[in-house]
C-alpha cells in the first residue's frame, strides 16, 4: 500500500521551478532520493513534510489529502522530519529537545518520557541525554535531529541529508537504523552519498531539474553502472551519472 502519493506536483522556489509536474508513489521501505544540487530534493522533502505548500498538484500522505487542516493534523501526528538544517533551542538538553518535538506531535504526555529515551538510545546518545545540545559535536547534533524525527515512531519518515557530519562508524550504524525503520515505515532519505543508498535503500529515485530522471532499485542502478562508460569509482556512482546523462540527452525526457 502506498503511503505517499504525489500527483502533478509543481513547486516554485523564488523565481525558479524547483519541481515540475512530478508524479510519485512510495510505499513501505527505504527510498533514496538522489540528484545534483538544485535538483529539487529538498523542495520535495519540505512539501512532503507539510512545511511548504505546493504551487500546484495534490499530495496524499497516509491516505489523507494534506490540503485541508483536518487531514493535515492526522498526518503530522504520524510524520517524522529531519530538515537539512534544523535549529535547536540553546538552553535545551537532548531530552528536553526531543520531548519538545514529541509535544509538537501531540503524543500522549504519559508516553513521552519513555519514547524520548527510546529515540535517543536508537541514535546512540543515551549517555548524553541530559547534556545541553549546544555542548555536543556536529555529528551528535545530527543524531539528536534523527532522534527527534523518530520519537513518535512515524509511519512516514523524511530525512534530508541525515548523514552529513557523521563519521564512518556512525554512518554504518545509521544505515542499520534505516533498515530497521524501513521494515514498517515509509522512509525517504535525501542524500548525495550514493554508497548510503546502495547499502540501506530498497528503492532509488533520481531527480534532475525538478523531474524524475530515474527510478529503480539500487541493484538496477549498480547494473546500469557496470555496463556504462561514465565517470565514477564504484558501479553505483557510474550508474548515477549514466542515468543522469541519459535523462539529459535530447529527446530523453518524454521517455522517462
Amino acid at each position, binding site marked *: 500500500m502506498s503511503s505517499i502519493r504525489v500527483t502533478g506536483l509543481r513547486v516554485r522556489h523564488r523565481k525558479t521551478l524547483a519541481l515540475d509536474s512530478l508524479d510519485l508513489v512510495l510505499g513501505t521501505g527505504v527510498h533514496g532520493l538522489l540528484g545534483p544540487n538544485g535538483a529539487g530534493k529538498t523542495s520535495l522533502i519540505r512539501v512532503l*513534510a*507539510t*512545511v511548504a505548500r505546493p504551487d500546484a498538484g495534490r499530495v496524499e500522505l497516509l491516505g489523507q489529502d494534506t490540503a485541508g*487542516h483536518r487531514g493535515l*493534523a492526522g498526518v*503530522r*501526528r504520524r*510524520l517524522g*522530519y529531519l*530538515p537539512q*538544517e*534544523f*535549529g*535547536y*533551542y*540553546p*538552553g*535545551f538538553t537532548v531530552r*528536553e529537545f526531543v*520531548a*519538545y*518535538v*514529541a*509535544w*509538537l*506531535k*501531540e503524543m500522549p*504526555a504519559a508516553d513521552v518520557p519513555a519514547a524520548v529515551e527510546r529515540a535517543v538510545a536508537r541514535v546512540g546518545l543515551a549517555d548524553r541525554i541530559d547534556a545541553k*545540545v*549546544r555542548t555536543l559535536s556536529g555529528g551528535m547534533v545530527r543524531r539528536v535531529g534523527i532522534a*527527534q524525527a523518530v520519537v513518535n515512531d512515524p509511519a512516514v519518515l523524511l530525512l534530508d541529508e541525515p548523514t552529513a557530519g557523521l563519521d564512518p562508524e556512525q554512518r554504518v550504524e545509521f544505515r542499520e537504523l534505516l533498515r530497521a525503520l524501513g521494515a514498517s515505515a515509509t522512509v525517504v532519505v535525501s542524500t548525495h552519498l550514493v554508497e548510503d543508498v546502495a547499502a540501506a535503500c530498497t528503492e532509488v529515485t533520481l531527480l534532475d531539474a525538478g523531474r524524475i530522471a530515474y527510478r529503480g532499485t539500487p541493484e538496477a542502478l549498480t547494473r546500469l553502472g557496470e555496463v556504462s562508460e561514465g565517470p565514477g569509482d564504484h558501479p553505483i556512482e557510474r550508474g548515477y551519472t549514466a542515468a543522469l546523462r541519459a535523462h539529459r540527452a535530447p529527446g530523453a525526457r518524454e521517455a522517462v
Partner: protein
Amino acid sequence: MTGPLLYARSRALPATLAALAGTAAFALWAAGRLDAYLDPDRRVPIVALAPLLASAVIGASLYSASDELDRTAVHRWWPRRLGQLTALTALAALLVVPAVLGHADTFGPPAVIRNTLGCTGVTATAAVLLGARLSWLPAFAYVTAVYLGSSAARGRAATVWAWPMQPGAQPGAWAAALAAFTLGAALYAARGARPEGVGG
C-alpha cells in the same frame, strides 16, 4: 517537564519576564528623578522610551530557533502566537504604569499604555517582515524620529503620526496605536516571525 513549559522556555519567556521587570524598575527609578509633579510634560521621555524598551524585549521573545520543525506541529500556531504576544503586551503595560501614575489626561497611565500597544504592534510587524532579532529597529527609529521632530508639529495629522508624543486623552493617537497593534498582532499570529536561519 511538560510541553507548555518547554514551549515557554523555547521562547525564552523566563528571561523575557526578567527583562520586562528590569525595564519597569528602570522606568520607575528614572521617573523619580524628573520632579514631574512640578510639570507632567517632563514625563515625555519615560512615556516614549519605557514602552519602546518593553516592546524590544517582547520582540526578541518572538524568535523561533527551530522554525522548520515548529512548522510540523499538529496544533495550529496562531492561538499560541496571539496568546504569547497579547499576554506579554498586557504585562508590559501593567509594569510600566507605576512609573507615571496620575495626570491621566496628559502623560500618565493612558499615554504609556497606548505607547506600549503601538510600539509592540510596530515591533511585531517588523518581526514578521525582518525577523525577531531586528524587530526592535523600526520602532526605535520611528519613536526616535518623532521624539526629535514632533515638537514643532501641529494639527490633526500630527496627533496621528506623532502618536508616541501625544497626551493620553488624544483620540487620534489612540487610533494610530491601536491600529498598529491590531496589524502587528494579526500578522504575527498568522505568519510568525520571519525565519532567520539556524539558531542555537
